[in-house]
């Protein structure tokens, strides 16, 4: 069986899901027998080099760069998995969704208590090289179709491992519902 090609990305996340992935510990050695990594922070490959079988997405979309990355993943990956709360529902970053963007930015960069009154006037950062902030944080499935969802904040390593093995080997994931029901 040829190895499956995997790509991963962290969008508006905290890298916690990637860390949880690494928590599969010595099973990384088994994993490497099953898959090869393409674009991913794990190997620091910045660009896709080929079509992939599986894309793992951590985080939702809070800026236009996230959106472009996600769309790029959708184009390149046969199966796309939303990993963790932020990818699935927007997560912690989406707490700002109830506050108008203008107010958020003003609080963060112009008037907030931690904004020091320096010699130059405060500005909201903007530069052609900087991503543009979206009006709200979007869960991934509102932008592209997501095939699977792995819940958790972060999803525990065992779940990530078993889900990957299931995807790679074409088996059904046999986790009882209660093990990833968090409410």
């Amino acid at each position, binding site marked *: 069986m040829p190895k499956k090609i995997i790509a991963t990305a962290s969008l508006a996340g905290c890298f916690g899901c990637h860390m949880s992935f690494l928590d599969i510990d010595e099973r990384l050695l088994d994993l490497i027998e099953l898959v090869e990594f393409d674009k991913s922070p794990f190997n620091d490959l910045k660009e896709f080099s080929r079509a992939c079988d599986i894309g793992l997405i951590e985080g939702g979309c809070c800026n236009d760069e996230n959106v472009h990355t996600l769309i790029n993943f959708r184009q390149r990956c046969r199966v796309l998995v939303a990993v963790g709360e932020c990818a699935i529902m927007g997560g912690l970053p989406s707490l700002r969704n109830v506050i108008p963007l203008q107010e958020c930015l003003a609080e963060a960069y112009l008037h907030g208590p931690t904004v020091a009154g320096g010699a130059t006037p405060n500005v909201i950062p903007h530069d052609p090289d900087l991503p543009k902030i979206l009006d709200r944080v979007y869960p991934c499935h509102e*932008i*592209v179709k997501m095939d699977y969802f792995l819940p958790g904040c972060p999803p525990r390593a065992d779940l990530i491992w078993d889900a990957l093995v299931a995807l790679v080997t074409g088996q059904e994931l046999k986790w009882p519902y209660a093990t990833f029901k968090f409410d």
Partner: protein
Amino acid sequence: MDKTIPAVIKKYNGDETRLMDILIDIQAELGYLSDATIARIAKTLNIPQVDVEQTVSFYHFFAREPRGRYTVYLNDSVVAQFHGRAAVVRAFEEAAGCAFGQVSPDGCIGLFDTACIGMSDQEPAALINDVVFTSLTPAWAREIVAGLRAGKTVAELQGDRLGDGQNAHPLVHAMVCNHIRRRGSMVFDDYQPGAALRRVVALSSSEVIAQVKAASVRGRGGAGFPTGMKWEFARKAPGDVKYIFCNADEGEPGTFKDRVILTELPQLVFEGMAIAGYAVGARQGILYIRNEYRYLRAYLEQVLSDMRANNLLGPLIVGQAGFNFEIKIQYGAGAYVCGEESALIESAEGKRGEPRDRPPFPVEKGYLQRPTVVNNVETLCSVVKVILNGPEWYNNLGTAESKGTKVLSVSGDCEWPGIYEVVWGFSVNDILKMVGARDVQAVQVGGPSGACIAPKEFNRILAYEDLATGGSLIIIGRQRDLLPEVVLNFARFFRDESCGSCVPCRALTGMAQIVLEKIIAGRGTPTDLDRLSAWSAIMKRNRCGLGQTALNPIVTTLKNFRGLYDQRIKAGDDRFEPAFDLAAAVRDYDRAVAGT
């Protein structure tokens, strides 16, 4: 303010279970329930402030901020939309100088949407400070606003417009019409007031229940539960204190038959409650009636006191030792879910109208934890007729599983909307002919929680064994755009009315609306349709019937009008969400940084 609050609370003996009445009365005096008022009520009742707050915040008609000296609650139902609501909205807004959801700058007029107010045969209709205005036109809306601004009272604006029958009774004095188009042999037949009560005392309580069982009376509130069995459970439940509730919440959009029954035959209903009390061993009855029907209150109170004077209520009814039964009236404050029997009980106890977990069922632990029977208005009427005419008579009407008659509320695109009492077993086609409906695209049977059926099913019959219904038929003509004009309205209704206890109900009613809007906007994908179907299965796990049926408008139209969905769906590659618009999503940011 100083005197109102303690005075009202004293009137209800400081009883916190009367919180609904207390809030309704205080709001009537003070116009709205400010934070200070709420704090004062809590203090006087000696209960936590949040207990008062959560009740206040639950009901649409409790206002936490001023809603204008005159508050217009304009019905927002599908049928109102059919009959020109949009133009009436514009006229009100222009005349008042504010949008719906707001109060005019001079504080005189507040404009608010409200769910169906039970006037679907005379839409657009509105409640203005408890007075019902029906068949509104833009010109009349402007006249009303101008009149109110000029200092006229709402009564003066109603003028001499009076409806038919008891609507013209001096104590009702409403312009509401009954539109009884067909009287059947059960509810709207002649009857001799008091005769059933005289007859019932010749029977033992178990004989009464045996008769109701022999007649196979089934509940008319929608679920069709056997009434005799319900009474028997309550009769056998341990305890000395039991209660009979008449459910007159009638919140299902398109339904208005209970209003007409209570207008024309209130005593029939009250006698039904007394008979239930006799059978079950209850001495207290409570009519739980929606706030929208508060215009009937003086009249209903009068009927009750006349019955007391005639020995048909109170101690020693018809002179029978041990037959004591009293009835009081409990008003709701605007919440569809309060029609669900356990929510209704919670509401009558002064709390948020959240359905209870069952078991225990109300017949074991209901109002104030006592055995309680909840019956629909029409069910109670049928029981009176069973006692008067005997179970065999009743059994000869209707079909195998559906005995007696059904009072239908017919509205929408037809010539003669109104009330039709028919024996069970009429087909939808029969009814459409009867009501003068032509060019029908669909019929919504049983309100939003029921089914939207297509012409190929119009030969189905109204009966528990086929199309079970609480009795509302909304006729949808060919000219209507079904998804935006009907299905979306219903989806919004359920989102607004979910009590929020169950996650699927709370979340999916909102998400279903969003997905539906997306589909209507032409940005839906095949995945969206799959998603809606999958959600409907999850919704069956909700605690009460509201959540269990909330996706029915979508599910039944997906089944019967699939083409309307498919033609709006973007076919082909659905890997990229057509609803996401990056340019729009960064617009706020561009604006925020534009000045810097």
